[in-house]
């Protein structure tokens, strides 16, 4: 039992760092010789749970603004070395955020407004924890900046007020919970490196926009801008506030000749209003709108390509060797996603092919809703990027650990018949995601095979060859682990369903 080893838990009040930076610190410290377990994190409810789960006793009274340093090692010397490593890593974080010391050097800006004034910024990228995001966004709007608002856990009332304030200042709020934007070739948040072109995107969906961008790129069609608007923009409460501003801006942009609007399932009335607004602008608009009975994103892109005069290519596919004969097969589809729209689309596509319902933490039908951490015997799609799953921790495209654990758990579950996973490449995402995911896939398949079960794994891989991680390189590593790979998320979902007993085509 590892808990016999020397352990230290320190609480540092008011020493804030963002969850991503701390994850990097934890990783670096865990690499110290003799350290068997290391977690450096803010004492959020979720992190305290994680720490407790790791066998660390977090002192009472630890609050979300306190830093916890928890180490376990094989000796006291190792603990000391680990603590020293923590200091080095934290000091490096501080050094990275400061302009430097010395006579006359200004202290670093502390608010987004101050940072904007220091550099005459034109755009703000806000990714502070959700409960603080509204304040920073108002500050940016007051400074005359459009805002890419990555933060989630912002209420719909606040979203409406922010968007109204932004419109009043002739700026736009891209978000909240906006993962992707591209402005004049600059990727904000998660975005792929795609060729420059004349198609503008308006996206009420981050990974949906990335999927569309990458499909266009594979078809040789380039993108001018991608303006994110937040996943709720086309819901009735928000009423397309940012979408209208985005369409008007693209209509005015000389580089943009046609537009694709990408959205999670919208409100029909709002969508109709937006359609008529776009008509009034005289824009050539195509629609990639998710929903039952609507074309999937791939079909929507194919249709847009037709009217843009581009031909539809054969989308990149790699189909894995089938599992050996004689293995049993579970009946359940298990879709474990980092991308919300990709999860949504997979759920919609698969539901049309499956007779049993799909449960999900993002189910449209309340009766099918389950918590993200809940396990079920039937079909299941989990969005690990949903608000509930990201409170107090980084987005799974940055910190995939929750999903990694879940892949292992599902692999050991006899009712799991196929694993459907997504992997999204590009700026902002994990720099080398393939190795870790390939290991998890390989381990999952070994686990299943050892208990006499087949476990096909299907990966929906959104990316381009120009992405820092490289589509082809990534696909090769995943294929080596025995996974099937699809650029088209809808095709991946169909292939996954086909792997289930009774659905084999």
């Amino acid at each position, binding site marked *: 039992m590892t808990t016999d080893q020397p352990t230290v838990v320190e609480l540092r009040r008011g020493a*804030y760092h*963002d969850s991503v930076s701390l994850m990097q610190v934890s990783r670096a410290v865990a690499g110290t010789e003799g350290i068997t377990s290391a977690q450096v994190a803010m004492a959020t409810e979720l992190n305290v749970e994680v720490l407790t789960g790791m066998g660390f006793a977090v002192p009472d009274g630890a*609050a*979300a*603004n306190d830093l916890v340093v928890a180490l376990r090692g094989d000796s006291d010397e190792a603990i000391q070395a680990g603590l020293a490593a923590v200091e080095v890593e934290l000091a490096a974080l501080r050094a990275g*955020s*400061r302009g430097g*010391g010395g*006579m*006359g050097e*200004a*202290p*670093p*800006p*502390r*608010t*987004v407004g*101050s*940072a904007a004034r220091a*550099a005459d*910024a*034109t*755009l*703000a*990228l806000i*990714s*502070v924890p959700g*409960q*603080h995001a*509204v*304040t920073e966004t*108002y*500050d*940016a709007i*007051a*400074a*005359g900046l459009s805002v890419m608002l*990555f*933060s989630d856990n912002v209420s719909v009332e*606040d979203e409406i*007020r*922010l968007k109204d*304030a932004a419109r*009043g200042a*002739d*700026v*736009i709020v891209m978000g909240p919970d906006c993962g992707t934007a591209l*402005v*004049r070739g*600059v*990727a904000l*948040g998660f975005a792929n490196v795609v060729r420059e072109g004349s198609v503008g995107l308006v996206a009420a969906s981050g990974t949906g926009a990335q999927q569309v961008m990458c499909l266009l790129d594979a078809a040789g069609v380039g993108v001018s801008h991608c303006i994110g608007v937040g996943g709720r923009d086309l819901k009735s409460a928000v009423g397309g506030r940012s979408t209208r*501003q985005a369409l*008007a*801006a693209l209509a*005015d*942009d000389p*580089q*943009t000749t046609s537009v694709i609007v990408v959205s999670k399932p919208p409100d029909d009335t709002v969508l109709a209003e937006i359609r008529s607004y776009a008509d009034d602008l005289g824009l050539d608009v195509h629609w990639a709108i998710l929903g039952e009975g609507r074309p999937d994103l791939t079909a929507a892109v194919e249709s847009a390509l037709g009217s843009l005069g581009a031909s539809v290519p054969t989308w990149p596919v790699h189909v894995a060797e089938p599992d050996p004969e004689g293995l049993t097969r579970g009946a359940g589809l298990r879709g474990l996603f980092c991308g919300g729209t990709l999860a949504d689309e997979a759920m919609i596509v698969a539901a049309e092919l499956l007779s049993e319902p799909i449960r999900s933490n993002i189910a449209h039908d309340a009766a099918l809703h389950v918590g993200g951490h809940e396990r079920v015997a039937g079909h299941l799609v989990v969005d690990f990027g949903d608000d509930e799953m990201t409170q107090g921790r980084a987005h799974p495209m940055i910190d995939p650990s929750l999903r990694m654990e879940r892949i292992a758990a599902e692999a050991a579950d006899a009712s799991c018949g196929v694993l459907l996973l997504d992997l999204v490449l590009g700026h*902002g995402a994990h720099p080398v995601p393939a190795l870790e995911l390939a290991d998890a896939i390989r381990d999952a398949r070994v686990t299943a095979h050892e208990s006499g079960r087949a476990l096909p794994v299907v990966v929906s891989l959104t990316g381009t060859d120009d992405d820092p991680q490289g589509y082809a390189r990534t696909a090769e590593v995943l294929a080596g682990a025995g996974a099937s790979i699809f650029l088209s998320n809808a095709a991946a979902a169909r292939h996954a369903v086909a792997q289930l007993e009774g659905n084999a085509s």
Partner: protein
Amino acid sequence: MTSPLRGLLGTDPVVATAGVGLFADALRDQAVAVSEADWQPPMEGTETDLARVMGDPRRVEANATAVARMTASTATLVDVVPAGEALGLEKGSFLHAGPPLTWDRASGPMQGALIGAVLFEGLADTAEEAERQLASGVYEFEPCHHRDAVGPMAGVVSPSMWMYELRDEVHDNTSWCSLNEGLGKVLRYGAYNEEVITRLHWMTDVLGPLLRQAVRSVGSIDITAIIAQMLQMGDEGHNRNRAGSLMLLRELLPGLVTAEGSSSDIAEAVRFSGANEHFFLNLGMPAAKLATLAAHGIPGSTIVTTMARNGTDFGIRVSGTGDEWFTGPALTPEGLFLGDFGPEDANPDIGDSAITETGGIGGFAMAAAPAIVKFVGGDVPFALEATQRMYEITEAEHPVYQVPILEFRGTPTGIDVTKVARTGILPQINTGMAGAVAGTGQVGAGLVTPPAECFPAALASLARAVD
């Protein structure tokens, strides 16, 4: 026609970031200009009020108006008058520094100064009698700020004391401050022995009338102009007033030397004024009061218009919340001590002089006064950093008050409650320290901040006022 979204799609983005450092790094990897905020969570429990106040549609314009008025205000010394006449202060009424206070909660120097003022007004023959009267509640006392006046340290004003009268003609405001008694055993530090009372009588009988003649004969004296100059001569206007005092004396001398009075009285008045390094403080304070008064009472504005201490409580008032005080226990300054005095001898923070910081000088102009950084416990880079840090919590840079070493950047002016709550950076105040025991006098000087709780309390009140 300008393109939509302020031309967002037509210009290469320059991005300000707050939050996940990885996104800033990803932008740098794309060779995009990035300005990264060193973002920290706000003061505990303020996020809901912050979001509400930040979203107040009146806020941006109200704050712009507040600082525009603050920095456009003028301060001209127009007269020197007895407090009874200037403020309508009745016999038996006293003003004091800081937020409202009762006798039983008053600290040593505040009680000492009130005792001294009672003796000076001839209302009691002994200190014991004065103390009994004060404790029995027969006298009225209220904050100087409630009469648009300010007083250093204990700030006790009684009807017979003489006051400088300053005018802001732009906003038609008047402010007053008592005459400075010099250093050492003085009433404002809570001393009330015979030497102190005798000096107060001389100031009332001789100095006040002579200064009145001097001011009336030279016409008016532009105090804001002196402040602008003294900042370029090594003063910060709170703990260092040397250059300002000399310039003030230069302005007054022609009037003083030609005043009607005995040559020995005039000589003593000139010597007394010239010997006092803080002669100017009592003009700088009401000038700052006029600036903040001009910014006061603007609905929706989150700009601080008063910071004041009574030796027990520290209180702030905010433009958008009118005359409501937000208080917390006054902290004890940290710094250097005179003679054998030490930290245990110091009283908690006291005086209306933090009005200088509220108006954008004093600790906020620390970088202008490298000569006193040791005295207030720091080195020169510390002074530069202190002033620059204050830009993070202020709305504007003063157009006239400038800091040469910061390439004549305007001083940070107009403390914004939301920025204090967001950054946790507290206003930096340079101050003198009074002895905790009544009658001790000054024991040192140093640095202090308001207690943090004033700001969330003010923010909550601002949030309640949002529709």
